[in-house]
């Protein structure tokens, strides 16, 4: 790791202001992704702002009938929250499908949203990567693409977002709450929070410099039967090849978001009318415009079959 100075933040607004003052500053909460990347010198912050002392670790009801999840709520605690298990089961399932017990005990809600990609070329500092070193090129394109994106990619980047939690939050229409360095707050719908790579794959979210996530808000329960089905190369502790987060109502309508296929949780609201006609037309509409490689084209069939399995269970 490169040397860095360290401070403990006293309030969210002070943390954001401190981050804006110091070039190269980063927030640290669970640290499970950031420290891994710092050891590899993929992340080289000159200053760390420890936000663990901020009182952002509660899950509270909102006046609208939803839940407000503090940015520092640990993945274990969110998955185990009785209200989440009962009313937002897709979120609990997604959290439990990710990482390991030890990681979930440390990893936070905001940190999970800000996870960096696990593209092998992003991790290999001997390779060009537009995300790690803007303008250096993309070694993944024309390289080993099996785990990479099949839709929404660009000529600059075909990395995927690794989060399971964010896929469930996309299906639930979550909203990300933040505070900016000038002390103002804003709410960012999760659909707009993660970006497609375009020509700037190193800019992964809508956050501005120094902006700090304070909470994630869930709207009132969507009801229906909720599923998170993750397909991976081993039974536990692996990233998704494809995952399906679904909320399916009794009448066959519903919502579907996909993980493992794009630079962001992938949801196409306009395609969801096809759900009542079955997995094949629905997934064709959701993945319309996909540009897979010969190595990862299997993800299209896998996504359709995973959705078919979810819809069969929802009917049964």
């Amino acid at each position, binding site marked *: *790791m*490169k*040397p*860095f*100075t*360290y401070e*403990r933040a006293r309030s969210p607004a002070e943390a954001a202001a401190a981050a804006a003052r*110091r*070039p*190269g500053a980063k927030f*640290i909460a*669970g*640290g*499970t992704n950031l*420290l*891994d990347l710092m*050891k590899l010198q993929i992340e*080289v912050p*000159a*200053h*760390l702002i*420890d936000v*663990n002392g901020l009182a952002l670790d509660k899950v509270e009801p909102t006046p609208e009938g939803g839940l407000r999840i503090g940015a520092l709520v640990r993945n*274990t605690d969110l*998955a*185990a929250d009785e209200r989440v*298990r*009962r009313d937002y*089961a897709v979120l*609990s*399932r997604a959290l*439990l*499908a990710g*990482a*390991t*017990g*030890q*990681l979930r*005990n*440390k990893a936070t809600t905001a940190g999970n949203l800000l996870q960096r990609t696990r593209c092998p070329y992003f991790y290999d500092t001997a390779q060009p990567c537009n995300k790690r070193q803007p303008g250096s090129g993309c070694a993944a394109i024309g390289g080993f693409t099996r785990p990479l994106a099949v839709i929404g990619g660009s000529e600059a980047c075909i990395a995927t977002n690794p989060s399971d939690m964010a896929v469930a939050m996309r299906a639930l229409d979550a909203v990300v709450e933040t505070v900016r360095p000038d002390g103002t707050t804003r709410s960012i719908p999760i659909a707009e929070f993660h970006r497609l790579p375009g020509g700037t794959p190193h800019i992964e979210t809508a956050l501005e410099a120094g902006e700090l996530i304070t909470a994630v808000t869930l709207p009132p329960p969507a009801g229906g039967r909720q599923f998170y089905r993750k397909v991976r190369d081993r*039974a*536990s*502790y692996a990233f998704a090849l494809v995952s399906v987060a679904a909320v399916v109502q009794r009448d066959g309508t519903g919502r579907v978001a996909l993980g493992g296929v794009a630079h962001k949780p992938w949801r196409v609201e306009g395609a969801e009318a096809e759900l009542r006609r079955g997995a094949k037309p629905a997934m064709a509409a959701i993945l319309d415009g996909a540009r897979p490689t010969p190595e990862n084209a299997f993800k299209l069939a896998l996504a359709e079959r995973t959705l078919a399995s979810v819809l069969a269970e929802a009917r049964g």
Partner: protein
Amino acid sequence: MPASDTPSVTRRSAMAGAAASAAAASLPPVALAQAPSAAAPAGALEAPVTATLSLTVNGEAQSLELDTRTTLLDALREHLHLTGTKKGCDHGQCGACTVILDGKRVYSCLTLAVMHEGDAVTTIEGLGRPDSLHPMQAAFVKHDGYQCGYCTPGQICASVAMLEEIKAGIPSHVTADLTAAAQTTAEEIRERMSGNICRCGAYSNILDAITEVAERQA
């Protein structure tokens, strides 16, 4: 010769001594970490930064002055000389560094020591002693839950805290009903222990050891 006259040289102290003399012979007096880097990013610091830290380890208060880069794992091993906690991958992939932090199992390699001011850490040395083993340590011995033993401290810390997670009602990926209490089935234990790798493949005996402790606690 009476045993008390024998100088106490362990494999570890002999190796540490050899490493120290090798380092003294081959390194210039200035630490390598301070050498200027050709590709330093804007705002990068070149000199190490230190910070002070007070925390409780195995019930004892400890005060340390550390490079901010020191992980909790390195603080335990290199500064407090509690070498029971092992460094395997150093990237949160193997579980050998698992310790119990304020009652919860974590990877000590993926957290900075300075982030744990005032916290309480339990390592394998704090769970039991050779003459008074923790029930999980005794069960690992009884069921031969290891071969080389390198992953064992992490396996034992993880399994002790894992059984507490089940008692606290925390569900897992294989819990069929999210609204019901989780059970200590073999399937549950295997899933919940997936963050601890055993390269020797002693998994079936590890499962037997954990199962015995879980059944005794039930």
